[in-house]
């Protein structure tokens, strides 16, 4: 179902996800906004505790309302799903928006054949479809994602597939209903690097073909650099930096992004120099540092960083947003010095 009108397919505004646990309130996502257009890819980058996975689950409405409080706006094709009845959201899941997960071995049911699981995804949203139709479509999709002998493979179980093929099968399952939005949560982290390259290529090809919006969640900056049009860097449940891939990866203006880029070993550059790590540890969401969540690890923290939460403001261009107390000229200078 493609709604009329242009504009981004997905718009998230001031999303907050709160968990009440025995140890205290966890603000897993604390005011995140972004949008994704059809045919484009948004890369969400973050480490553990950044809130990136919680964000994606919120977009699909998969949080248990008894455990998590989701506030803000999530507009899917113009429709706000926050506060929408579960039945309504369920209709969108798997049809208008789909998700693939990190470990395809545990994400697929071990007791049912791959074909059956994919056909199930088709039939739940096409109630009039016969088994044969569903089967045909399944085999077609399996072939589309590059699985050889799809007829035979459809009758096999997940553990009989290799890691790369399993992920392809998951992609087939997610795309079988031609969704407008695909969320891929660390889709290649568990795969070998040569297989990862294949999967990323596949996603790119499928995006061209289906014109879907893709959100790719990862901790791997290299992966992001390869597939993302836009990049969102998350830290401690908040957005640290947001902009085009070119800007964020080539001209970053947040100390955390600098830290990420300089700490990742690269295939080029001086191999004998020490890496420049970010000191300290990723934050605990229960005891989030006051003010700027990154300040305990930031070499440029000021007194203000300890007290005020920095606002997400435009930097060198309107679409490049940075949440940092440092004035822009200082940031630009510091980055130049560090390189």
């Amino acid at each position, binding site marked *: 179902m493609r709604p009329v009108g242009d504009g981004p397919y997905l718009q998230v505004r001031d999303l907050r996800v709160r968990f009440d646990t025995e140890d205290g309130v966890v603000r897993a996502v604390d005011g995140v906004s972004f949008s994704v257009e059809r045919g484009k890819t948004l890369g969400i980058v973050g480490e553990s505790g950044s809130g990136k996975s919680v964000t994606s689950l919120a977009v699909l409405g998969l949080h248990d309302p008894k455990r998590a409080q989701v506030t803000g706006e999530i507009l899917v094709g113009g429709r706000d799903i926050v506060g929408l009845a579960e039945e309504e959201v369920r209709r969108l899941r798997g049809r208008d928006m789909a998700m693939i997960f990190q470990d395809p071995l545990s994400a697929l049911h071990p007791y049912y054949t791959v074909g059956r699981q994919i056909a199930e995804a088709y039939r739940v949203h096409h109630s009039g479809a016969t088994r044969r139709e569903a089967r045909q479509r399944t085999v077609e999709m399996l072939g589309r994602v590059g699985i050889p002998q799809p007829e035979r493979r459809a009758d096999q179980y997940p553990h009989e597939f290799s890691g790369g*093929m399993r992920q392809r099968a998951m992609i087939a399952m997610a795309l079988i209903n031609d969704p407008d939005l695909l969320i891929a949560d660390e889709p290649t982290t568990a795969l*070998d*690097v040569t297989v990862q*390259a*294949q999967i990323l290529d596949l996603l790119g090809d499928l995006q061209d073909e289906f014109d879907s919006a893709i959100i790719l969640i990862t901790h791997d900056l290299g992966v992001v650099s*390869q597939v993302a049009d836009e990049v969102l860097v998350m830290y401690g449940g908040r957005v640290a930096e947001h902009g085009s891939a070119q800007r964020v990866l080539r001209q970053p203006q947040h100390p955390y992004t600098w830290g990420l880029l300089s*700490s990742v070993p690269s295939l080029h550059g001086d191999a004998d120099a020490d890496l420049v*790590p970010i000191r300290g540890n990723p934050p605990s969401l229960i005891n989030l540092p006051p003010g700027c969540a990154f300040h305990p690890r930031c070499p440029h923290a000021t007194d203000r960083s300890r007290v005020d939460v920095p606002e997400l403001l435009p930097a060198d261009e309107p679409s490049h947003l940075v949440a940092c107390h440092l004035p822009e000229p200082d940031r630009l200078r510091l980055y130049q010095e560090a390189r």
Partner: protein
Amino acid sequence: MSLLAVEGLTKHFTARGGVVRAVDGLDFTVRAGQTLGLVGESGCGKTTTGRMLVRLLEPTGGRIVFEDRDITHLGRRAMRPLRQDLQIIFQDPYATLNPRHTVGRIVAMPLTVNGTRPPGGVKKRVQELLELVGLNPEHYNRYPHEFSGGQRQRVGIARALALRPKLIVADEPVSALDVSIQAQVINLLRQLQRDLGLAFVFIAHDLAVVRHFCQRVAVMYLGRIVEIGERDEIYERPRHPYTRALLSAIPDVAKLGQSEGRIRLTGDVPTPMNPPSGCRFRTRCWKAQDICATEEPPLTAGVACHFPEPEGAP
């Protein structure tokens, strides 16, 4: 004189349906104070090799020579003193520390097991070690669950250093850590390697990490070494098609915006159960010819290929 020399090292497992040739004839040496990286994807046999080096697994063929002594099939008693010199660091910091032991006890274990009495006492040595790896020596009595992943990995490193080993086998020591922590631990390992003159066999699937730590690199595929050489040679002038494909497949931020020049391999990594005849890489190699199916290319001048890339070619 090499510290560690491996000749024709082989490990076959029997499983339903056949023999898994996990490691099939490895040859390499490591000098004192030198670092060798073993890289490859899943099923290449690098982890199995690491375990064989410290004799956690018994080789089914070949030799392991440590300081001119053949240790391939030494009995447990004879291996005891050698365990001081050969240590291992594992991948998963959450699984390799006994959750019921204090960190102090964990680090002291090699000392107590070996009956070593360091001057000043065990406790002092343990605190020294904790400090050496960047942990607070006051945390001697804390339990693993009170530490973060990166800190636990440091505990594992401290434990490995307790007996002043000459060679450490590090099996994916940073793969399970967050990106920002990886860099800390890699730097720590670099520093320790320099300061203590340690030799390392560094096992990893991440070529970029290996580049920042190892002086020499061996690329493995399906149980064999396909290319071995000095770091810069491997990374800048790779000669084996697989090495080239591997390097090309790694997404690197520096390559932002470039999509040309990427080599795309087809298919998945075949299983070590029935490796292809001749050259094992031929099923995915764009250069494969008839001879590749009939003759297995020997490892000559650091590369095992019938049609290696010419030296000097980009």
